[in-house]
């Protein structure tokens, strides 16, 4: 029983961070209707920023949140403005041009990272990296708990932003109906740029939060892109609440899989859930709640 509870705790904690990654993806998907296949790679960039700041300036990963997030916000805005938005005007046979473009961006980001930092594994070893506290016989990893709490905080701020501010309302309006929003005087092109920036900043924060726990190498982005995608399908396309639930479900499922099936299958659990959701519950968890 203790093993089971321990597994659940680990799953929920990592799930909080997954949610953060998933929300960024779902926001971009909602507003632009495309899947950002460079999502994990953006996280990788923020992780390298964190690493460099720690290595050369000895900045704590949690402090570099304040540098990595704005940096990735600008990177995201630039990518959207100069690489993705111009594609709407390009005439082509395939409608998935923007998705292919994000693949290209992802490859370039990964390879630039490999050029600068080589493929070696890097790690940020903070004093609290392996610290843990116990409640009963269940151990709680300190960095995981901090990550979970900060993830919750960011999610709350994002909700406030989307529900209460003008910009947030404009983003939601664009997501619901781009043309109608444009007719109401919203500059939908600007909105897509800002949304991509916000999505990138969110995934950047996830990168900073994971940095004390994970090893870092240039190819780390790919698996996280896939995770983000599984989360968004699981939660229901374009649903922010769904992404949160989906993130936690994926976290729990992965950690159950790792404990009871085997470490090698940890990654696969997510994909199997993904296939099951597609077959039995197309539309994701959103379908169940009708929100």
């Amino acid at each position, binding site marked *: 029983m203790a093993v089971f509870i321990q597994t659940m705790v680990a799953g929920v904690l990592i799930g909080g961070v997954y949610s953060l990654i998933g929300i960024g993806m779902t926001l971009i998907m909602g507003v632009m*209707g*495309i*899947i950002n*296949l460079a999502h994990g790679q953006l996280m990788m960039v923020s992780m390298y920023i964190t690493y460099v700041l720690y290595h050369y300036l000895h900045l704590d990963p949690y402090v570099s949140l304040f540098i990595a997030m704005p940096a990735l916000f600008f990177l995201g805005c630039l990518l959207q403005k100069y*690489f993705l938005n*111009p*594609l709407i005007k*390009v*005439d*082509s*046979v*395939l*409608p*998935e*041009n923007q*998705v*292919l*473009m994000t*693949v*290209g*961006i*992802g*490859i*370039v980001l*990964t*390879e*630039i990272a*490999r*050029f600068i930092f080589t493929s070696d594994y890097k790690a940020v070893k903070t004093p609290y990296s392996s610290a843990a506290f116990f409640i009963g016989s269940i151990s709680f990893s300190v960095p995981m708990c901090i990550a979970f709490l900060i993830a919750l905080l960011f999610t709350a701020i994002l909700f406030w932003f989307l529900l209460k501010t003008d910009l947030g309302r404009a983003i939601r309006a664009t997501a619901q109906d781009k043309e109608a929003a444009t007719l109401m005087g919203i500059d939908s092109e600007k909105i897509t740029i800002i949304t991509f920036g916000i999505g990138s900043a969110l995934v950047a924060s996830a990168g900073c939060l994971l940095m004390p726990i994970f090893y870092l190498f240039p190819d780390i982005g*790919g698996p996280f892109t*896939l995770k983000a*995608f*599984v989360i968004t*399908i699981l939660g229901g*396309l374009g649903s922010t609440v769904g992404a949160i639930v989906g993130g936690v479900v994926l976290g729990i499922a992965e950690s159950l899989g790792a404990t009871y099936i*085997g470490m*090698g*299958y940890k*990654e*696969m659990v997510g*994909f*199997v859930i*993904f*296939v099951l959701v*597609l*077959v039995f519950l*197309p539309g994701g968890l959103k379908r169940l709640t009708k929100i």
Partner: protein
Amino acid sequence: MKKGNLTVGIFALLLLLFPLVVRSSYYQHLLIIIFIWVIIGSSWNLLAGYAGQVSFGHAIFFGVGAYTAGILVTKLGVSAWWGMLLGGFIAMAVALFVGWVCFRLRGPYFALATLAGGEIFRLIAINWESLTEGMVGILIIPTFKSKLPYYYLSFGLAAACILAIHLIMRSKWGYYFVSIREDQDAAESMGINTNRYKNIALLVSAFFTGLAGAFYMNYMGFIDPDVVFSLHYISIMAILVGIVGGVATIMGPAVGAVVMVGLQETFRSSFFGLAPQWVSEGHAIVFGLLVIFVIMFMANGIVGDWNKISRLFWRRKAVRT
């Protein structure tokens, strides 16, 4: 049309004579690799370019074909050449399942579903060690020492693949595929069973890709999950071959294969030893930049935008004179 046939004929003849003139096994090897990519790229093009279902998971079929041939040797002890017969059909069986799951989704979601599918297969191949030998991979002794048999076989397969796709696209099926790409709902309302024809496109595509996989096993003699189920080096490369050459054109993937394999080889060998060593590490970044460039400026690829390109050069010449 006749002029086109003549060009293709002369070109095919040149390719047939090539290994008799150029004895260097390096260049023969390059062309064999190009032929393999012509097959994969063309079959990707059938599904994505013509039927509009962009697949990010062609490594599934390539890997399944290759592993069929490999497992026949390691588990049943028969020649890997039987894999050339079976590989395509096993890949089709897998494609039926993949289609059953993934065709529930449309557009980018379909693309991503196939991408996840590819990763699932890679992980299965890594973890199911009793069947696939896991990360150790499968090693067989190639039948022939000379490259000639492989050269003609891969050339034949590539030609057959292009011809088959050409014929399909001239038949009723071809029109169904294009109508599905242009507007799936309209196609459905015209009485086309879109699900069936999407599956047909997938099955044909998977068959040839599986065949290419089985041939790869026979030719290279070694496979492991990270090679044949690789997202970057198979699935994405298939897409690159397609879009660089030109989606929804018959010869596009062939041109794309030449360009991509040529580029890969040029960078891998650091411009044939002329440039410093570090250039060889840059081949992946060039791929990425090429994708961005092609999508932004030549959305229909070299063949699709040929008029645009030739006009560009013609104009430059005109300015000079």
